[in-house]
C-alpha cells in the first residue's frame, strides 16, 4: 500500500480539489483561443501557461474534455518511425510522456511494454530494417528481430499464421508503451486550469472571424469572442474549422474503429502490430484486449461502428492468437481520422495570420499529444514555427516537400 493512499485514506480532509472548472461565462477577449479540448488542445494550453506565461487562454470544447480521438484511440506510444523528421518528433514526445505522471502528479499509467511490428513479407522485412536503422541512428531502441526471438518473447503467437503469410520477423521497439489516454487529457487540463487557463466544455465554435488576412476572433454557441490567435486542434473536425477561414488542406476524413474484449487475467505483456493482417493489440491494465485495424475503406465524417470491422479484425487476429477465439468482444467504437497524403501531420503557422493548425493526426495523434502541445505552444508564443515541426507545415503540400511516413504510420499506431 503506497504511503499516499494511506495518508489520504486516514485524513479527514474533503475530496481533492476539482480537476476542471465549473461552467463559467466567456470573457470578451482572450490572447489565445484553442479550439478543441482533447489531449492536444489541453496540452497546448498547459505549455502556453507553464512555459510561456500566456494564461489568458480559452480552450473551447464542443462536447466534453477528451471526448474525441483522445478517448477513442488505443493508447499506443512509440517513436519507431521512418523519416528523420518523424523519429525526432515522436521521440521527443515519448520522452515527455515518460515524465508526465511526475509533472502532473497524476498517474497516467505510462507503461513501457515493448512493441512488435510483425513482418510477413520480404518487402515488409526491408521496411522494418529501414526503420530499425533510422531509429538506431537517432539513438532509439529499435531492432530487426527474427522469428526465434519473437517465439521466445511471445510464445503464444502462431508465427505460421494458421498457414498463410507466416511471420518472418519483426521490428522490436523496446520503448513502445501504453498509457491511460483519458488521464493524459485530464492531467493537461488540470495543469492548465491550475495555471489560469479557462476551459469551456459544451462550447462550440461556429465561426472564425478573419479580417485583412488576420484572425480577429471566434463565434461560439455561447457568444462571440475576440482573440489574437486561434489554434485549431480538432482532428477529424479540422475541415469544418479550416472552411471557416477559407483554408484548403489535403485532409481526408476516414473513420478508424476499435474494440475491446471482456477483461481477462493479463497474459499479453507486449504490444503487437501486424501491417499485413491489419491488426494491433495490447492488453490493458484492466485486462481487456484493446484492438484496432486500419482505417475504414471510404471517406466518411461519422463515428458510426460497422460490423464488418469487428468481423474482419477477429478473423485476422485469430491467425496470430487462436485461443482468443474464446474471448468475447464487449464494445466497439470509432473515431474520425484526419489523414494526410504523406501520413505526417500538418502543424504550425498558416497563410492566415494568427491562425495555427494542428491537424493531420490520422491514426497517430495520441502518441504525439505532449510534443504537439509543447511545439504548438512555442509556435504561438513566439510567432514562429518550432524547429521540430517545420517539416510539417501546411506549405509542404505546395512545395513538394512531403514527409513520407506511410510505411511507419499507417497501421502501426
Amino acid at each position, binding site marked *: 500500500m503506497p504511503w499516499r493512499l494511506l495518508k489520504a485514506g486516514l485524513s479527514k480532509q474533503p475530496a481533492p480539489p476539482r480537476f476542471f472548472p465549473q461552467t463559467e461565462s466567456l470573457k470578451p477577449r482572450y490572447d489565445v483561443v484553442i479550439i478543441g479540448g482533447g489531449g492536444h488542445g489541453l496540452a497546448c494550453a498547459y505549455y502556453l501557461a507553464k512555459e510561456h506565461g500566456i494564461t489568458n487562454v480559452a480552450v473551447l470544447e464542443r462536447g466534453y474534455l477528451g471526448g474525441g480521438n483522445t478517448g477513442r484511440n488505443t493508447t499506443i506510444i512509440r517513436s519507431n518511425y521512418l523519416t528523420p523528421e518523424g523519429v525526432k518528433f515522436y521521440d521527443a514526445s515519448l520522452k515527455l510522456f515518460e515524465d508526465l505522471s511526475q509533472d502532473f502528479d497524476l498517474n497516467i499509467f505510462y507503461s513501457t511494454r515493448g512493441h512488435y511490428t510483425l513482418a510477413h513479407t520480404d518487402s515488409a522485412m526491408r521496411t522494418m530494417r529501414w526503420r530499425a536503422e533510422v531509429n538506431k541512428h537517432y539513438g532509439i531502441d529499435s531492432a530487426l528481430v527474427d522469428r526465434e526471438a519473437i517465439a521466445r518473447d511471445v510464445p503464444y503467437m502462431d508465427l505460421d499464421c494458421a498457414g498463410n503469410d507466416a511471420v518472418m520477423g519483426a521490428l522490436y521497439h523496446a520503448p513502445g508503451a501504453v498509457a491511460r489516454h483519458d488521464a493524459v487529457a485530464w492531467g493537461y487540463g488540470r495543469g492548465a486550469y491550475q495555471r489560469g487557463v479557462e476551459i469551456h466544455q459544451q462550447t462550440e465554435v461556429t465561426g472564425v472571424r478573419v479580417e485583412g488576412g488576420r484572425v480577429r476572433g471566434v463565434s461560439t454557441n455561447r457568444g462571440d469572442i475576440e482573440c489574437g490567435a486561434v489554434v485549431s486542434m480538432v482532428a477529424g473536425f479540422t475541415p469544418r474549422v479550416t472552411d471557416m477561414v477559407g483554408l484548403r488542406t489535403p485532409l481526408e476524413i476516414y473513420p478508424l474503429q476499435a474494440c475491446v474484449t471482456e477483461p481477462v487475467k493479463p497474459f499479453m505483456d507486449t504490444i503487437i502490430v501486424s501491417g499485413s493482417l491489419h491488426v494491433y493489440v495490447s492488453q490493458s491494465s484492466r485486462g481487456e484486449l484493446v484492438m484496432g485495424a486500419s482505417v475504414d475503406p471510404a471517406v466518411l465524417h461519422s463515428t458510426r461502428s460497422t460490423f464488418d470491422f469487428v468481423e474482419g479484425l*477477429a478473423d485476422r487476429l485469430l491467425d496470430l492468437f487462436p485461443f482468443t477465439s474464446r474471448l468475447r468482444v464487449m464494445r466497439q467504437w470509432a473515431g474520425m481520422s484526419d489523414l494526410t497524403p504523406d501520413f505526417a501531420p500538418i502543424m504550425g503557422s498558416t497563410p492566415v495570420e494568427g491562425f495555427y493548425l494542428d491537424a493531420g493526426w490520422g491514426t497517430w495523434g495520441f502518441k504525439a499529444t505532449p510534443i504537439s502541445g509543447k511545439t504548438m505552444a512555442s509556435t504561438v508564443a513566439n510567432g514562429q514555427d518550432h524547429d521540430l515541426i517545420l517539416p510539417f507545415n501546411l506549405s509542404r503540400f505546395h512545395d513538394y516537400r512531403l514527409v513520407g511516413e506511410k510505411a511507419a504510420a499507417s497501421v502501426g499506431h
Partner: protein
Amino acid sequence: MPYRLSRQPLEWIDREQTLRFTLEGRSYTSYQGDTVSAALLAQGVTTLGRSFKYHRPRGVLSLANHDVNALFDSDMEPQLRGDVTPVTDGLSLTPVNVNGSLTRDRDSIIDRLGRFLPVGFYYRAFHRPRALFPFWERLIRRKAGLGRVDLDWSARRRPKRYAFCDVLVVGGGPAGMQAALSAADAGADVLLVDEQPHLGGSLDYQWVNDPRVEDIRTQLKQDVAAHPRIGVLSSAVAAGVYEDFWVPVSTPEGIVKVRARALVAATGLLEQPAVFRNNDLPGVMLATGAQRLIHRYAVAPCRRAVVLTANAEGYRAALDLLAVGIEVAAVIDIETPQPSGEMVSALTDRGVPVLGRHAIYEAQGSDQVTAVTVAPVEDGRCDLQHAREIACDGVLMSVGWAPAGHLLYQAGGSFRYDDHLHQLVPDSLPPGVFAAGQVNGAFALSAQLADARDAGAAAADHCRGELAGRSEGHRDRLPHSSPWPIVEHPKGRNFVDFDEDLQLKDLKQAAAEGFDNIELLKRFSTIGMGPSQGKHANMNGIRILARLLGQGIDETGSTTARPFYHSVPMGDLAGRRFRPERLTPLHGLHLEAGAQFMSAGAWLRPEYYGEPGQRDAAIAAEVRAVRQAVGLVDVSTLGKLEIIGPDAGTLVEAAYTMRMRNLAVGMTRYALMVDDSGVIVDDGVAARLADDHYYLSATTSHADTTARELGRCILEWGLDAQVVNRTGQWAAMNIAGPLSRSVLEPFTDIDLDDAAFPYLGVREGKVCGYPVRLLRVGFVGELGYEIHLPAPAAETVWRRLCKAGKPLGLRPFGVEAQRQLRLEKGHVIVGQDTDGLTNPFEAGMSWSVHLKKPYFIGRPSLERLKGDVQRRLVGFRVPQAEGSAIRECHLVIANGEIAGRVTSVGDSETLGCVVGLAMIDAALAEAGDALHIRVDGGADVVAERADTPFYDPDGARQRVAEEQELAHV
C-alpha cells in the same frame, strides 16, 4: 437439492435428466435445463463469485445474462456467465478472480482497505517514487481481469449464416410475440429473435400467477408457432444494429447476420437495483431475478424474504413467493402503497406487513444476507430513530426499470425521461424502427399487447413503403420506478455498479473532482465499463449525477449505447477462415521441379528451385544458366491488360509518362506510371498490336489498381476504349539467355531473326500450336522473349521448352535469380528501389518523362519537380569480402548524418563483386564520392560508386537497337 421447489407450471427443467458438474472440484447435480447459477442455488450455494475490486462475495442478481459477478471458467471457455450458461454433464468450473476459494478468498482483505482505495485511486499513487511504478504495475496487473485464458486453446471458428426478413422483432415476450403476429398478419415475413431458450419473456415469470393470463399465453405461443410467416430464433441475442437494418444475431451455433426492412424492438426492461448498504450481499437480488428462479428453474431464492418495492411488480413478486411457500417477512415500499391496490390487501390478508415510505437502510450478514434494517425514508435519508431489524435470508428489489433500448439507440433513436413513469422512454425513432411493449413504456399486459399490435402493423406498413405513424397512447401514466431508489449510509458499501464495485460515494467524489459530465463520470469512475456495460448501473448513475448537479435527467444525458448488447465470442465474429491464394497455371510444374515459394500479394511465386539448405547455390546456378545458356521464368503474375478502341492511344498516352501514341505497331516501349503528385506507382511494358489496340503489362502488386485506374480514366475522360484485365486468363513466361532463340525457334511459326523481329518488337503467332504474343524485352539483360499465352497452354509450352533446352543447360529460374539479374543491369523494381515519394527524376528515369506531351497524369507535378531533385538512385560496387555484410535498407551515412539507404544489393558472381543501388541525397550523388554504408553492428563499409548497368553497359547482349528504352539508372 434443498431449495428446489415442487414442479412449477412453466418450468424449463427436465426432472428426468440429472446432470453432474463440478465447481472448485466439488461435485454438484442439476437437471437438464438448469443454468449453473440456478443449479448451485438449488443446492444452497449462494456465493457464486467474488467482486472485481473488493473481492466481496456475490450471488445472483438478475438471472438474465447480466450477472457478471457470477462468472466461471471452464476447460473450454473463460468467464461463462453462470446465470445463463446451461449445465452440461461433466462440466468442470472454477470461479473467476478468486485468490483461494469462493468461500475463502484471500483477497477479500482488500474489502477492509477500501477507504484507502477510493475512486480513481490508481491515478493518485504508485508513480512516486518513479522507480517503484513497475513493481506496483505488476501487482495491479496480477489483480486485474476476471477469467483465465488457456493459451493452448485452438481457434474455434464458427461459420456465419445469413437471414433476410421484412420485419425483425427482437424480444419474444408478450409484446414481441404480438408484434410478430400483427406484422405477419399484415403480410410481412417476420423473424422473431429471443435470447432465452423459450419464448414467453415476462409473461412466463411476471404473470404466472394471474389466471387471466393463461389463455393469452397459450394463444400467443400457439399462434406464433403456427404462423407460416414467422420464423423464430431462440437463445439468440441481437447483438447490435448497424446501418441499413444490419443486425448480427449471436446464437450458440454462431452468428446469423440478418438484413431486415424494419425493426421492432420489444426488448423489455432491465430491472434496476436499489442502492443501500450491503445491497450486494448474496441473497439480495432483483425481484425479476427471483421470479425467474422460481418459474423457470423451480428454485427458491430464499426461505424468508423481504421485498423492497416501488411498484406493482414488487407486490406481484411477493405474492409469487407466497404462492410457492416462501415466507415474506415484510414488503417495504419506498413510496406510499397504492391505496386501492388489491395486491396490498392480498398480502396483508396473509399477514405480510406492508411498510409504506420505508426503505432498507442496510443489509446485514457476512457472506449471505441475514437481516435488513428498515426505516422510514424521506428523499433517500432514513429516519434511524424508527429503524427496525427484520431477519431474512433474501431480499427482492423491485424499485424501477431502465429500457433495454440499446438497439433503438444504435439504430439512431433517442430517449427522454417520462415524468409520470420516472423512467426513460423512446422519444424519436428513425423510419422503420419501432418500439413495442415495456421498452415503450406500456406496462399493463393489455397495453403491451395493444402497443405491440400497433408496432407490428406499422412495421408491416413500412415494408410496403407506407408512412407508418405511432401513437404513444399505450404508455402507462403511473410510476413503475422510484425516482430516487438510493439510500445514503455513512459507512458506504452501497453499490451502484456491481461490475466495477462502485459505491455512491465514489460517484459523488468523482463529480466533486470535476468529472460531472456523464461521459467524464464514466471515464473517471469506470461506471458502466464492466462486462455488463452498465445495465444495472447507468440509470442510477444518471440519477445520482442529475441530483448532484441539480438538473433533470434529460439534461444530464446518458453515455452512448455501443455494440454489443451482450459480448460476442471472437471465434463467432471471425467465422470461417478464407484466405484466397493465387497460383499461376504453372504451379504444379514448379512443385515438380522442387521450387521454394514466396508470396507476392495473393500470389505464390517460385523464389528458387532447390533445397532450402542450398538456397544461395541454387540461385547462383540459375543466374549462371541465364548468363551463359538459357533460363525460363514464370512471369504469369504480371498484370496483363488489353486496351482496345479508337481512343486506346489517347488513354495510354495520358496514363503513362512516355509518348505512346507514336509507338509503331509491332513495337513495345517501357511504360512508367506516376500519380498526381509525380510519385512512381507502376511500371511495365506497352506493346502496340494495332492502331487501336495496346497490350500492357503491370507489376504483380499493382496490376489490379492499374486496371481500375485506367477504367476510371476512361469514364472520367469519356474515352471510347475498353480495358480487359487478362491477368488471370493468360500466363506468361520469359525465356532468356544467349541460347534462348535456339530453344524457342523450333516451336514457333514466328520469324525470330533479328531483322524480322528486332529488340523491343512484339509479334503474334503460335508456339507449340497455341496462339501467343512474343515480346522481345530484356529485363534480365540477355536475349529473351516474353511469351504471353492462354493459361491452359502454359503447361505444355513450359514442358516442351524445358525438355528441349535441357541439353543446352536450360534451368527454370525464380524471383531471386531474376532480382539478381536485373540488378546487374541496374533495372529498378518499383516499390523496392522506389518508395512512397520517389519520382522518376530521383529514380534516374528522366528519359522516361516526356514533358513535351501536353498532358499526362502527374505531369503538372513532374514539371515542377524537374528542377528540384532531392535524392538520386545511384549504383555502387564493393569487393565481395566487405560487401557481403550489406543488406537492403542499410543506411548511407555522410558527415555523421543519414544520407540515404541501400535499396538493392546482391553478390554478383557474374561481375565478381557485390553491386547495389542506393537512394541518396542529391548533393552526395552529384559529388560522386564513395558511399559509407553502415552495416549491422555499426561498421562502416565503403562502396565505390559505379555506373549502371553494371553488366553489359552497351546492351550488346540483348541486341539493343538504336533506341535505348529500358529502364536503367
